């Protein structure tokens, strides 16, 4: 009995203790939860207030693409990388109100090859792949030879664009003829149609295929290049967008190239950076265009090689060896 009582006696405090413990536990938990809620709430509230305050003050001024100055909250700023769709759209539209034109002064070209090198490095071409060919011209045996750099003529009536069955090569409102590698079908009709032989075909994997794997294709630079596509001079459409002269024009050390906007009647020499009236330059120098009888209306003008200031000298021909590794 006593044992039982003892047992009961002993048992009751145990139970009470347990109940007591659980109550204490519960109270502790409730207090803790309350404290957490209050602190959390306060934190969230202060955070909200801070955000609100930031929203009012943290504005930043941004120049939009159409040249408007706007104010946007700092927290809504995102890093912007032009995606393929945007590059394609703006690459096809071109720059409104412009009509690019190039003038090549043959009396100044001494085949320094700086234009070719600048072009090849910008467009990731091999040493034997050319957007500009420097041809040796000699009209007849008793007339002197001269060098003639020949880029794409960016015709206003481009036969290459007419024959393209898939709209992969196209003309823009500012006069530039471009190629969209994303639409290209490997028919190569454009190469055959071009009377100036301005286009080349990529038979090999591009030189920087590995490095450019994740790079977005820029139709205005034609980079990354792609095996099995056509490429040609682009008048450095990407540089024109930034207000800079094409790669070849600014690389020339002899003042051969002039480039500018026909609408502004002005062309700027790439070497001297001197800007002259296009109409005056063409008229006073007796300018001409290549194969006018074809009616292609090129946007490249040539100034005849008269009053040359140096002797014609054909440099040594270089042999290019492909790096197999």
């Amino acid at each position: 009995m006593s044992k039982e009582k003892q047992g009961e006696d002993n048992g009751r405090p145990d139970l009470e203790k347990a109940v007591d413990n659980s109550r204490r536990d519960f109270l502790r938990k409730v207090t803790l939860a309350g404290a957490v809620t209050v602190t959390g709430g306060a934190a969230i509230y202060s955070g909200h207030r801070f955000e609100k305050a930031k929203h009012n003050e943290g504005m930043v001024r941004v120049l939009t693409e159409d040249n408007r100055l706007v104010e946007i909250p700092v927290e809504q700023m995102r890093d912007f990388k032009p995606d393929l769709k945007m590059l394609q759209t703006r690459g096809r539209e071109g720059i409104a109100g412009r009509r690019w034109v190039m003038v090549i002064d043959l009396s100044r070209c001494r085949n320094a090859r700086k234009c070719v090198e600048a072009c090849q490095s910008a467009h990731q071409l091999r040493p034997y792949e050319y957007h500009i060919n420097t041809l040796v011209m000699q009209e007849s045996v008793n007339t002197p030879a001269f060098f003639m750099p020949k880029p794409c003529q960016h015709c206003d009536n481009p036969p290459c664009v007419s024959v393209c069955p898939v709209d992969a090569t196209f003309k823009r409102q500012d006069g530039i003829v471009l190629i969209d590698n994303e639409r290209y079908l490997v028919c190569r009709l454009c190469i055959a149609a071009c009377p100036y032989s301005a286009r080349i075909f990529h038979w090999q994997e591009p030189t920087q295929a590995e490095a450019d794997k994740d790079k977005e294709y820029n139709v205005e630079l034609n980079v990354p290049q792609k095996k099995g596509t056509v490429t040609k001079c682009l008048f450095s459409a990407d540089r024109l967008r930034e207000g800079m002269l094409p790669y070849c024009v600014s690389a020339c050390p002899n003042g051969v190239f002039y480039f500018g906007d026909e609408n502004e009647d002005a062309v700027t020499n790439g070497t001297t950076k001197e800007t002259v009236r296009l109409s005056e330059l063409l008229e006073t120098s007796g300018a001409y265009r290549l194969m006018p009888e074809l009616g292609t209306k090129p946007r490249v003008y040539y100034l005849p090689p008269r009053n040359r200031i140096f002797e014609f000298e054909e440099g040594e021909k270089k042999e290019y060896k492909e790096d197999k590794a």
Partner: protein
Amino acid sequence: MKYTVPVIMCLLLLPSLSKGQDWVVPEERKGRLSTFPFTEETRKEGERLYNINCLSCHGTPGKNNSIALVPPPGDPATEKIQRNSDGEIFHKVTVGRGQMPSFRSVMSAEEIWKTVSYIRSFNRDYVQRVMQIITSSAYPGAQISLSMAYLEAERQVIVRAMATDEEKSVPVTNAGVRLFASRYFGALAVDEEKLTDKNGVAAFVIPAGLPGDTAGNVSISARFTDEEVFGSVTRDTVIQAGLKNRAGSLVAQRAMWNSVRKAPLWVILSYGIGVLAVWGFILLVMLKLRDIYTVGSALRGNLRPASDQEPTNKQEAI
């Protein structure tokens, strides 16, 4: 008498010998000096500019590796170039001659002086003389400013240069001023360089055919030719003096080379008619086939009783 022929030949040869070598710099330009002293900093900046603008022809100074041209460009470290005065080098770089292009629009006066500073670093005997801008300037301590006005009737831009200090304002006289119209890749010189008259005024004529933007606006700026003396003061403004740009887009017209929507009407029409004709023919063939089928089934319907009887006859036969 026997020396006549050699003497004449020598006399004939003399001008031809000196012809290629003499590059005469106008007397007033020879004594021109830099407005700042040449330091290690200007030398470094000059080296950068030299490598961009001069290296491709003149080579690395001291290495005698300039490219082979006639006349040779020459190594700037050699005595031939170093015996030029600062003003002469400055003038030759600015103006250019023959195959040497003019760097007037490529580098500012300050940048050309920095290049001279680099070239001079290869001459140990060189001692620089610096121009004191305050003493050489006719208007010491004064703030020089330009103002512009456009006279629409005369198509003239009047530029006025004034030097103002604390007490008074006086016109800047006999100063060369140039006027430029802003173009996409650079500044187009409008009219020639003009000297300011006794009132500090220079008048420029805007040529009639100068194109402006779509509204005919041209943004023009005026500046002094001698920026070392008068400071790099410029004055920009927009005037409505240009032709309105109405050229429009080059892909607006219908053409074979244009996009599908802008194809010539005859192409769209003949192609459309062609496609319709082919599909129409296919549709016609299918309709005819349907007709044959209906006629065929009608005929089969008429014949069916006869064919149906056959098996029954056979059954009966069995």
